[in-house]
């Protein structure tokens, strides 16, 4: 495996990890508009992600940093080409992050109402827009010979991208609902589980649509047929099992299954893309790949040494933090937010 391959893999892992982890806290954010019956229950839900959401977001920041360092042309093309998409992602992420912290620091209907709205919007916009951006990138965007991209409105905003965006939102919401029922006790837990069961058919339609539309709109199935069919098959199993475990009230397993659906989706995306990052709709010779977008060999080597040294520690203490806060919360607990 060359260093270019390795860094493609690492960035794919970072993005996939981001959607798996931040996926559930986006979902919890969106579910604050569905599940709670009163303010105490809403606080309980926000507290379930309290110790985690910030570190989850760092997966995205690290992914972007790794893009910048390992594949600067990818970073430059994507971020400038999708300009307005990223403006709205950032506005969403900024408002969401401060809302968690600000919400509980003062009182008043207007105060909590404002930050509640920001949590909802900030938890919906980023997965929606990231879903659209990734869908557009695999479908093809007008990348020119000099790697510059000026994505027009219809490049990012069309039926396929919107469908994928909604599907990512749906996956996150489902993942968030199972996370809430896993991390709480009492009424919130039951309501989250019931709503998850009711939402499951909608997600099924979204997922099925994603698979079929992707088959026709992109070259992923043509390029990686055997893998893609296997992923779809495993995905169907995970989907059915998530329904079964929800019924059985085995929420840890249900959470694992909703996470598996997210993992399968994003792993498939990167498997289908490899060795490309972005597909040019003008000419496949202009595709951004792990070869023409990369940093020098020296830089990749330096980065590899750094990452190999640091990653084990990062993964270890993150896992430890999930272990420290593995106990269920109830409305009677001390709530920080």
């Amino acid at each position, binding site marked *: 495996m060359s260093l270019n391959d390795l860094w493609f893999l690492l960035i794919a892992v970072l993005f996939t990890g981001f959607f798996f982890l931040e996926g559930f806290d986006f979902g919890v954010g969106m579910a604050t508009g569905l599940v709670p019956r009163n303010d105490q229950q809403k606080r309980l839900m926000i507290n379930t992600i309290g110790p985690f959401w910030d570190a989850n977001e760092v997966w995205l920041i*690290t992914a972007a940093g790794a893009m910048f360092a390992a594949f600067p042309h990818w970073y430059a093309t994507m971020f400038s080409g999708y300009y307005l998409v990223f403006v709205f992602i950032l506005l969403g992420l900024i408002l969401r992050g401060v809302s968690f912290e600000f919400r509980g620091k003062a009182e008043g209907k207007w105060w909590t109402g404002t930050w509640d709205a920001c949590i909802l919007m900030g938890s919906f916009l980023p997965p929606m827009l990231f879903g659209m951006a990734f869908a557009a990138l695999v479908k093809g965007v007008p990348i020119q010979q000099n790697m510059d991209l000026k994505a027009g409105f219809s490049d990012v905003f069309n039926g396929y991208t919107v469908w994928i965006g909604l599907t990512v939102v749906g996956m996150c919401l489902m993942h968030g609902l199972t996370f809430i029922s896993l991390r709480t006790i009492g009424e919130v837990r039951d309501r989250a589980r019931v709503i998850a069961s009711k939402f499951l058919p909608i997600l099924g339609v979204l997922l099925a649509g994603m698979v079929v539309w992707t088959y026709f709109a992109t070259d992923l199935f043509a390029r990686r047929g055997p893998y893609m069919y296997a992923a779809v098959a495993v995905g169907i199993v995970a989907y059915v099992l998530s329904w079964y475990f929800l019924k059985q009230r085995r929420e840890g397993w249900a959470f694992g299954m909703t996470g598996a659906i997210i993992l399968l989706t994003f792993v498939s995306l990167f498997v289908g893309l490899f060795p490309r990052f972005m597909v040019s709709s003008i000419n496949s010779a202009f595709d951004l790949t792990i070869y023409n977008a990369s*940093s020098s060999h020296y830089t990749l080597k330096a980065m590899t040494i750094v990452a190999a040294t640091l990653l084990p520690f990062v993964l270890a203490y993150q896992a430890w933090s999930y272990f420290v806060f593995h106990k269920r919360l109830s409305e009677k607990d001390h709530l920080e937010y």
Partner: protein
Amino acid sequence: MDVLELARLQFATTTILHFVYVPISIGLSLLVAIMETMYVIKKNDLYKKMAQFWGTFLLINFAVGVVTGILQEFQFGMNWSDFSRFVGDVFGTPLAIEALLAFFLESTFIGLWVFGWERLSKAVHLTCMWLVSIGTMLSALWILAANSFMQRPVGYEIHNGRAEMKDFFALLTNEQLLWEFPHTLFAAIATGAFLVAGISAWKLMHKKNLDFFKPSFKVSIIVALISSMLIPMFGHGQAQYLVETQPMKMAASEGLWENSSDPAPWTVIAGIDPEKKENSFEFKVPYALSLLSYNKLSGAVLGMNELQAQYEKAYGPGNYIPPVRTTFWSFRIMIAAGCAMIVLALYGAYLTFRKKLEGSHRWFFRLMMLGISLPFIGNTAGWIMTEVGRQPWTVFGLLQTKDSVSPTVVAGEVLFSLISFTALYLILTGVLAFLFVRTARKGPDIEPHQETVIHDPFAQGGDTNVVK
């Protein structure tokens, strides 16, 4: 305005506002770590209260600092894609390491600290805060390593039309970084210290919770004194280094058009006329610029006209003189703020150790409250001098600002993001100030935490509750 000007304006506003929150986080996390250490050593609950109370300010601020930082990272790609293509090979690495080494550390352990008071042992909990503090400092180290490359590029070669890294360790041993990092770090620590000291002074003036705010004032004023004395030490080194590596920035910050005499006098204030390339009036202190530049009473400093001629010879025709007024005055504002900080910290420390903190020192407490703003003024002016003084270069001698901007982005898009982010940042700053005042007004109060009920989430049905 065109894309270039709008992108520059956006970078300036978002960076300046981001750099309001970052120093608070660096300074406060160190202070909170010190307070909690005292709690663990002295086993006195007062210090625990202190760590929790000042920790609230840290958390409010931390949230804003983190989220505004994401924009900083994305902005290089969004507004400055040609810069990103040109230096990504070198510049991206410190940014990626910053995320991997520092951001993960800060964000994970701040979560453990906030939610872990009852779940972690005292020592482990304390370690969490120290790791947060170290994380914020490491973050500063790596971002300044990237910035130092822009001030003085090292360890690279131009290849395939871009700067490619040739020596990773050269980035870390860049002498620019060795001055810039401690100078900025101590300024950040002072920012947190003056914040705590100022709020404490406010409470002392109103004679509220004296038992709580006197020790708070004491801890913070010691940190304020030490850090504000160290800032100019490293700043002086950085200025001398500037004379060697970026003489144009030095000349601009001195308003020096023609080469100075030998020994060189220091211009305290001047009326600068960039059109005529001369100063309408000047007030000078003899020998001082030689002393500042070379640590001796002799030596001339090159002026902007001479340097402009040299740069034209080296880099081709163009204007290599940065905005002189901005550079000149921001330098002086920074120094004035730094001096005022030292004076305040000295007097505050004197009162503390003479045990004169009660008594009739209302005027001093008022000054300490105003003193909260001093580090922000100094920090902002310092950054303006550093970044504006480097113009027209983004990477000194290699890449100009006009060649760094994204070619595909149009003015309307940048204008839209400029307006929305500026508005958002101003709102966040307002909310932050409101919450700071509110928290300070409420003062420390400790609500007794309830007994924790433990549940096993993986058990079938999950209903087996163990009550500890």
